[in-house]
């Protein structure tokens, strides 16, 4: 799954990502694309709080892409 959150300011990229993660199954991977610098810190912090795993981040022509693997427990 790909989520294009480029152009959105914090905390919207994480909110969109969390909404998509709720629909996903454990083990699914989501690639979230972003430009807001806060997302660099907040996506890993969110993943830690929710038990997901950040697989890596790479730069795009415009912005960055972070891949997250959905964990077992996505219960708030």
């Amino acid at each position, binding site marked *: 799954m790909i989520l294009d959150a480029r152009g959105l300011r914090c*905390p919207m990229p994480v*909110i969109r990502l969390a909404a998509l993660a709720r629909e996903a199954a454990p083990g699914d991977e989501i690639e979230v694309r972003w430009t*807001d610098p806060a997302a660099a810190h*907040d996506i890993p*912090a969110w993943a830690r*709080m929710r038990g997901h795993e950040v697989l890596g981040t790479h730069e795009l022509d415009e912005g960055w892409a972070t891949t997250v693997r959905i964990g077992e427990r996505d219960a708030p």
Partner: protein
Amino acid sequence: MTQTRVYLDAGGRAPVHPAAREALLTALEDGWADPRRLHSEGRRARHLLDGSRAEIAGILGCRVEELHLTPGHTASLHAAVQAVAAGRRRVGSSVVTSAVERAAVLTAARHVDRDAVAVPVDRDARVDLEAWAGAVGAPGVALAALQHANGEVGTRQPLRDAHELCRAAGVPLLVDAGASVGHDDVGADWDLLAADPGDWGAPAGVGVLAVRSRVRTRQPGPEDEDPWAPGGVGVPQAVAAAAALRAVTAERGRSAARRHGLVARLRSSLSAVPDVQVLGDPQDRLPHVLTFSCLYVDGESLVDALDRAGFAVGSGSACTSSALEPSHVLAAMGALTHGNIRIALPREVTDAEVDRFAAAVGPAVAAVRAMLGAEGL
């Protein structure tokens, strides 16, 4: 029922202490003249200024010749970094800081050393001593800078060990105690110490910088009779700073214990709000400072919601400032940088006010989450 405003953002600018107000008014009568003049009015101002310096030096634990007044805290930090870097140019040009220093320290460090080293910190914002040892022990270090405690999250730094490592390496240590002096015992583990009168209840307009006589400095700017404050500082502001420091130091133990307990109470009730991270060391911290981050919330909306509910709070979130970058402190800690609120309890805060605030946070957070469509995530 009308409720009064509750001011919980007393970091850097605290409500003016009554002792400072009184001293300021008296000094406006007696100390308005230029202390560099030789007539009676000038001498009276000089006498007040010297007395203020002596009083502040005594409380900070240095000699009066080592105590300088500056135009303000940022000016103190800029001047300290530049003067030591210039004075030790023969030794080297590199500067070492922690990653969570105040922006004024980081920008000054990069101003004199483009490749200034920012030593990483742990989840609580405490500097990594092993990395610190490596950085200050490297050849060519002109200066190291480490805060006494972090002004955003309150965590105290391991200053004794950090200073010992600097001493062993022969590197002078600048300690930013801007968030600490007046609230906490800052000790003697420093070579230069910067303190902020605005933070301890004096009116803004003067800063304090202590420089041990063993530290080699050179003023990079044009010559002036007072190189740390070209043209001199306002005498009434200096008098007010000393009077406020005397007053808050006398009541510090009691005030610190009371506010330490209030922050502990706040930390525990905020932890119960869903998806709120309470940051910093729960024990080894400043008595009055607290930062928390709320998932799925933007800091600006939360500051506004709390303001409408009667509470003035600060925020280190990028969403709240014109700067695009999130708080470098929260980023270095690996904490959530959005939805961030910083509290600095003023001395006058009451138990009831803190409890009212604790009760107001949950509903304010829920309202912002609802507005952003982030409920139930």
